[in-house]
């Protein structure tokens, strides 16, 4: 249950929110002279409020004008509006979730292990095919060294790859024509070519 004092304090803070998000904050951010926490909050406010973005633009215009009168004379607001209009019609950039690793950005395999990892992965993947159609539990057969370089995803319950009979080669020209007109699915495009790499 809030007290009257609490309410008033929130109101004060609310005024302060609007008071502090002023052009001065934007000016400091523009110069890259703000501490991280303030900068993040100011950026968030800018992204949320078109009026604040206009301030960002006006302040940038000052620097532009000081550096070059001709440059400033051309209409930057119209240009920025044009670009914004095109961008707004674009589908949004969609990354399911931007998980940052502790090292910041790099997240892929270590170059030194490349050859070993690929060879190991290929060797492990090959095994169940020889014993198709049963699923082979690779964990039992692999050495610890191999286990450490290959993913969990690759080593456990490797898929049974069924339908091993071949297609009559007289189907090849139909398959080529079919492939040509396959639209964009979700399964990687590479699979389409690799399905019958030998057939041409």
């Amino acid at each position: 249950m809030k007290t009257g004092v609490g309410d008033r304090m929130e109101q004060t803070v609310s005024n302060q929110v609007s008071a502090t998000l002023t052009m001065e904050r934007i000016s400091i951010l523009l110069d890259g002279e703000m501490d991280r926490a303030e900068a993040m909050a100011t950026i968030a406010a800018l992204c949320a409020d078109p009026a604040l973005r206009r301030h960002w633009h006006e302040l940038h215009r000052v620097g532009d004008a000081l550096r070059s009168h001709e440059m400033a004379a051309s209409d930057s607001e119209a240009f920025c509006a044009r670009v914004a209009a095109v961008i707004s019609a674009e589908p949004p950039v969609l990354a399911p979730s931007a998980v940052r690793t502790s090292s910041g950005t790099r997240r892929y395999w270590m170059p030194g292990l490349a050859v070993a990892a690929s060879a190991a992965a290929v060797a492990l993947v090959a095994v169940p095919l020889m014993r198709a159609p049963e699923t082979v539990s690779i964990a039992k057969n692999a050495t610890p060294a191999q286990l450490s370089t290959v993913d969990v995803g690759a080593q456990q319950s490797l898929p049974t790859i069924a339908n091993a009979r071949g297609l009559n080669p007289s189907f090849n020209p139909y398959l080529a024509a079919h492939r040509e007109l396959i639209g964009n699915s979700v399964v990687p495009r590479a699979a389409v070519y690799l399905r019958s790499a030998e057939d041409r």
Partner: protein
Amino acid sequence: MSDRDIDQQLVERVQRGDKAAFDLLVVKYQRKIFRLLSRLIRDTAEIEDVAQEAFVKAYRALPNFRGDSAFYTWLYRIAINTAKNYLVSQGRRAPTSTQADVEDAETFDDGDHLRDLNTPDSMLVTKQVAEAVNRAIDRLPEDLRTAIVLRELEGLSYEEIAESMQCPIGTVRSRIFRAREAIALELKPILDTAKDKRW
């Protein structure tokens, strides 16, 4: 938070779906890109078209930007490639001076001159802008003028300016801001009405 970190933050926001963050980057780098393109392309309308295409391509390719280089360096390369492709498509060759170094892109630029806009209206606006800027600068108290010039034309940091002017950083901050406000006020009527004249 450094300039580069700010750009990185904005890029990450765009990568998470925030288009407004991209607007902020466009405003920030529009002039630099125009200046870059003006070394390759003469006509202002063409520069605007190529610049627009470069920004849109950057937006689309943003999933590939990982912060290994500065955002502007990456944008710069896209702009150069876009300009080259444009010139090729027009049957024109880029001048050999396109081997502009990446280092060039990263140093603080001090305002090359864009080739003169050719219409009488735009020349008039240029003149008016020059007058407004000069008027605003002249009217500034000396400490504000020094602060803004050291920041915008010499590229000094707040700390460097504070040392040079022998005053606290907080003072530098507010002087720069007040100078910007004053100049923005002088420019506003010219740039805002000039916009209407163009149509």
